[in-house]
């Protein structure tokens, strides 16, 4: 287990390296970053001075090496907006809000997709299956943030049950979590349905039924547990999608997470914050994928990491 973990962590290094390189190319190589920092009417002298100060007058490979060295020390550069504050600290302060939203959304997605997928599979080609399929189809076709706006319209503006935006407590979390959670629920439901259908046709399920086990036990112990493996795989792969969706959802609900911070930073050309957010988000995705892989062992006793 330990050696597997070590190997997986080593495998993360090239990916992280790739992420950092993409950021470098986007923020440094493409166009002159000095133009991003200075007002449009800045004089030539000002431009040259800033360029020297930022080390942009040096050859690109040197800049790249310096960039990597800074990052390795946890130095993401200086923010234009939050001067004299550590950029990493600013981003880390916003991270819990995003993680809270993403976890709640994941819970919503599982609570919707798992039962619906099972019910659809067990009632194949009958009414519950048709209804679940139609809902899933609608979920795929609908822009998720629009569903969020419609939820605000219904539950915040008209019914006044829940707040429109912000982050002050549980009530604030409900609508954003529903919005973000449903964005992956459709896919997961279809997956659960097909996984369940496949498993329920297996010989060992027929055996379990034939030996007279209670129906619920057959479904849960023999069916569900085996169908869960594919489900958990995709759940892990969807975490990047969930964070991407969070960027939009946070904007709809004015949720103070890293997505909203990133949009503000991009709009104000605060590139230090931008690169910190992207790198941190990639780290979260990679860590989550690793945790999902480790979760296999819990679901499937045949999987042992050595």
């Amino acid at each position, binding site marked *: 287990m330990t050696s597997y973990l070590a190997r997986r962590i080593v495998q993360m290094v090239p990916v992280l390296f790739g992420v950092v390189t993409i950021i470098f190319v986007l923020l440094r190589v493409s166009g002159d970053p000095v133009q991003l920092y200075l007002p449009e009417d800045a004089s030539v002298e000002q431009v040259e001075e800033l360029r020297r100060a930022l080390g942009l007058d040096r050859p690109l490979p040197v800049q790249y090496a310096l960039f990597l060295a800074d990052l390795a020390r946890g130095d993401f550069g200086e923010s234009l907006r939050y001067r004299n504050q550590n950029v990493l600290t600013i981003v880390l302060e916003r991270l819990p809000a995003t993680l809270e939203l993403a976890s709640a959304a994941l819970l919503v997605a599982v609570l919707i997709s798992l039962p619906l997928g099972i019910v659809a599979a067990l009632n194949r080609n009958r009414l519950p299956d048709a209804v679940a399929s139609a809902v899933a189809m*609608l979920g795929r076709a609908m822009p998720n*943030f629009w569903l969020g706006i419609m939820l605000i*319209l219904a539950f915040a*503006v008209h019914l006044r049950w829940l707040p429109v935006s912000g982050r002050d407590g549980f009530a604030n979390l409900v609508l954003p979590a529903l919005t973000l959670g449903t964005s992956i629920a459709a896919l997961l439901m279809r997956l659960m349905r097909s996984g369940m259908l496949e498993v329920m046709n297996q010989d060992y399920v027929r055996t379990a039924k034939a030996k007279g086990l209670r129906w619920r036990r057959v479904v849960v112990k023999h069916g569900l547990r085996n169908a869960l493996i594919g489900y958990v795989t995709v759940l892990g792969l969807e975490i990047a999608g969930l964070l991407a969706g969070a960027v939009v959802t946070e904007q709809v609900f004015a949720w103070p997470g890293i997505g909203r911070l990133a949009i503000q930073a991009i709009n104000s050309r605060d590139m230090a914050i*931008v690169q910190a957010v992207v790198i941190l988000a990639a780290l979260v995705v990679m860590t989550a994928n690793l945790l999902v892989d480790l979760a296999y062992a819990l679901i499937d006793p045949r999987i042992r990491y050595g």
Partner: protein
Amino acid sequence: MSAVTATRPGVEESAHRRPRLPVLARRWISSPNAVVGTFLVLAFVVAALLAPVLAPFDPNATDLRARQIPPAWLDGGTSKHLLGTDQLGRDILSRLVFGSRIALIVGLGGVALTSVVGVTLGLLAGYFRGRVDVVISRVIDTLLAIPNVLLYLVALGVFGPSLTMLIVVIGCVNWTTFARVVRGEVMAVSEREFVDAARANGARDVRVMLRHVLPSVAAPILVVGTLNVATIIILEASLSFLGFGVQPPTVTWGRMLADGRDYLATAWWLATFPGVAITLLGLGLLFLGDWLRDVLDPRLRGR
């Protein structure tokens, strides 16, 4: 896959042969989803092509005396503005009709570029394997590790949002799905006898890839492509909503939604109808894509 079919070559053969056109037409007419999907998509294509003729008003013409008029069927609505007007008195229906242009241009342009990049890289990775495959797969891993919306926003923030940039950036980021599907398919196809035969006859790698391997993976490309148009249209709407799409005065559905978000309490129709338009177009494309998949390549289910 190949292990199963190696013992039953006949099954593989029939599974890969594409249905003939009359057969396809009969299956199309007998599938309600496919027919509905086709008409939905066609309706939006016609709207986009004939926008200046079909739209009752100039989409940017403001009329301050006719602000926030509700849809025609509500109290205060007029038949002049079927879907009402926005906060500046612009006709919603006309804006939706013109907005379909950007949605379709970005959707189709994006998928065209995406598929060229994705198919090329997937083909190279699947055909040559080894080091080529490792490098391309690493790039895919990297792109998948970054939440894609962040990448789009950073790129559009740096290069400036415009129609061309939007399509280029989508092409550079979105190709991973294509590449992964094509890579897998190519790996399976490259094992088949006709590829060996072509090679034994002295065909060069490029010729084998383009003439022998690529046609065999055409069906999955078509299916993934159709479904991907829907994904890109929703993506375009999200980016426009966040202010990183094609800029005004060009009308986009995403921007309409963003504006409408501020008027939920007084004029719900502003933010409602653009979403309905996106959903209908998305449904059409998904119906069509799912049907194509079932007809051409049922193994792609769930991808």
